[in-house]
């Protein structure tokens, strides 16, 4: 986050910009796949770490933002 923002928000922006008309739940799955692939390293975290989103949905219909 220190240099370019958080993995989640930055990846979300990247994925939604690439396919703004896609189903949001599918796009979030793609965001999660990419975030899970990332290795996190940092000064307070000398070993490889992983992050994973949690997606909770009670949507009743497909949601497409464009």
């Amino acid at each position: 986050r220190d240099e370019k923002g958080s993995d989640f928000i930055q990846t979300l922006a990247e994925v939604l910009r690439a396919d703004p008309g896609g189903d949001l739940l599918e796009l979030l799955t793609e965001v999660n796949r990419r975030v899970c692939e990332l290795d996190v390293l940092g000064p307070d975290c000398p070993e490889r770490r992983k992050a994973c989103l949690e997606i909770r949905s009670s949507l009743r219909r497909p949601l497409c933002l464009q």
Partner: protein
Amino acid sequence: VEPWEPKLEPSPRAQYDLSGTRAALLLSVIRSRPGAKHDVEALGSLCQALNFKITLRTNPTAQAFQEEMVQFRECLDALSAPVSCALVALMAHGGPQGQLLGADGQEVQPEALVQELNRCRALWGCPKIFLLQACRGGHRDAGVGPTALSWFRRWLRASPTTPSHADVLEIYTDAQGSASRGPTAGSSDQADILMVYAAAEGCVAY
């Protein structure tokens, strides 16, 4: 007199109708969160591209988180034009029990903020998106795979549950609740909510 015609419900496969106003509320603590500005910029730009009307507040205190949400709800309810979607981004440090920490270090429960928006009459039956960029505890996920195998074995000896939270997708199709009100009579007041956490429960968000 117009002849009566049954009002057709949209097909279950039909998308949410997003032809009305879209509103976004971005609440971000950027103090002592280096780089958080990049997230605000990225989300702001994205919301703008997706035609959301944006309200941005940086460095809210815990109380301001709540107040901003109340104000957001009241503004939406006061709109004369129909509202079709709300997006709320909550970005802050997080406490060990999933609390958000305001700029004053005080805690606010994200669930309370969700409930506040749930009361919004203008959003009945409309999708409500919550993005939570915050730690939800102190666990650091080492993942699984060859390089993590030694850590994984040590971890297995110490804990009865699996260490990685990968592939967690919780779909709640909660149909309980019987409030018959508003434009979506018969639907649960917990429906139409999409919550996305940057980390699994108990874990650090990077």
